[in-house]
């Protein structure tokens, strides 16, 4: 009671400030979060002289018009897209099978499986990258495109399992049983009932895997040999001056992935 009394005696200004602290903080925090993005986009329009693109010198559309003007940069983007597509597709397949096993079956070795999936997510990239390199060195495997794909499949499997599992959690087993009761065999049941239900989760997992693979630097760095991905190109260029075209593609990637993300949300909302 005494507390309630003191609360009402507080000056209205203090109450006014208190109500607004959190919203103001959120605006500040979002500004902080978007500041580097704004700089990436802004500097794709910077008319910079010399090799370094670190100080603002004036507006130009040159880099956007001449986006494909740095041949090795374009090659690295193509390589990254290929690696992301192949590795995410295979990881999505392998991970979806594991997620199905975990959600639909009780079996011995379940906790070992969960632990085995958790560990790669809890291992620093530098350890995974260097240990995989240790294996390739011992086996005498030359590093290149294939070893990067192998590495990306490896670190993507666990994320696929988590994503697909999240979607399968609300999954009604009775629908499958109903199909079986109507004499559909296991394969038909899977194709006609299970697959359509898990498909949004599988798609989300593929997109996540694609994004993680496309942006991976540390593990790729250890296992790439002479193959140059987009992040590896930026890393190499960082010492000698990053061409502004890198910012052009960085900005383009941002806008494209944001569109995909918003589209995905809309699709899911329509479905729900």
């Amino acid at each position: 009671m005494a507390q309630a009394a003191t609360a009402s005696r507080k000056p209205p200004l203090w109450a006014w400030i208190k109500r607004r602290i959190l919203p103001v903080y959120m605006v500040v925090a979002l500004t902080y979060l978007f500041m580097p993005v704004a700089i990436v986009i802004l500097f794709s329009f910077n008319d910079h002289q010399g090799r370094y693109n670190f100080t603002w010198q004036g507006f130009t559309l040159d880099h956007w018009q001449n986006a494909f003007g740095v041949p090795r940069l374009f090659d690295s983007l193509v390589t990254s897209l290929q690696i992301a597509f192949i590795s995410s597709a295979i990881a999505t397949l392998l991970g979806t099978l594991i997620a199905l096993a975990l959600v639909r079956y009780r079996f011995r070795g379940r906790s070992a499986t969960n632990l085995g999936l958790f560990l790669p997510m809890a291992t620093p990239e530098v350890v995974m990258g260097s240990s995989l390199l240790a294996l390739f060195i011992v086996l005498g495997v030359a590093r290149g495109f294939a070893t990067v794909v192998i590495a990306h499949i490896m670190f993507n499997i666990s994320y696929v399992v988590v994503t697909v599992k999240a979607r399968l959690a609300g999954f009604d087993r009775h629908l499958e049983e109903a199909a079986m009761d109507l004499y559909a065999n296991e394969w038909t049941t899977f194709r006609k009932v299970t697959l359509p239900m898990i498909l949004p989760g599988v798609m989300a997992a593929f997109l996540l895997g694609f994004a993680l693979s496309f942006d991976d630097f540390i593990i790729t760095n250890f296992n790439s040999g002479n193959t140059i991905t987009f992040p590896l190109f930026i890393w190499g260029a960082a010492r000698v001056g990053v061409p502004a075209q890198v910012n052009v593609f960085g900005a383009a990637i941002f806008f494209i992935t944001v569109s995909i993300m918003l589209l995905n949300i809309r699709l899911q909302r329509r479905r729900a």
Partner: protein
Amino acid sequence: MTTDEATSLVNVGARQAARRRKAVPYLLLLPGGLWLAIFYIAPMIQLVGISLQEGTYQTGYSMTWRWENYADAFALAGSHFLRSFLYAGAATLLALFIAYPLAYGIAFRGGKYKNLLLVLVLMPFLTPFLLRTLAWKVILADSGFVVETLKTLHIISPSGRILATGWAVVAGITYNFLAFMTLPIYVSLEKIHPSLIEAANDLYAKPVTAFRKVTLPLSMPGIVAGTLLTLIPAAGDFVNASLLGNPQRLMVGNIIDNRFLRIVDYPTAAALSFSLMLVILAIIIPYVRASGTEDLVA
């Protein structure tokens, strides 16, 4: 055929079907499990193997169970090892203080804009990691507005700088892994039913007390998960230290990268890498024991 024979035949069929059903989960696990066994577990064993070998790149390496490699590695990079956890720890703490009110605001004040706000928070992480880090080089540049403001406020000396110091590295790491902190905290706050906090208010708890006794304990799983998810990649990172930090004060990831790929001193690099794994394991084992295996990949 007698009825007995018929029933036993049916039983055999049923048993075979049951056995086949029992095999199904293992068949589903097999391809992905094999992949992880060959490309996650086997490499880890090779890493330990190489860390105990002796030799040079030119003469080749041979297994001599040389445990001294670990002592040598720490004589070389012990300070980098400590610095990694100092920077990672500082960045994790900062990330917690930045992310918690943000997640709290979205969960409890977001209203119908909850999803939009969540997307906004995740959006910056769709720009490439290396470009985001390089952008911090611009923000913290010597004559940039951040440094100039801090000079005006006499927080740093007139000749002071942020770039090429530990502060820049911590700032970069904090920013780069912030989504890993925000998401789990948001998820745990979202699950709290507002009526629990209302109940605390009805029982005359001050807002601060209600937060301390109800909201904070209930969001603990998110705080713990977010802390681990930030600390682990932060401790192993070498991109921020390399692009934003002082070349004389690098992190253990830089040394592992450098020893493996440029100096080609595999045993030392492997010893450092496996030591990092052991420290991380020591951190996550209590977490795994407390949360149980079922929630690990949920």
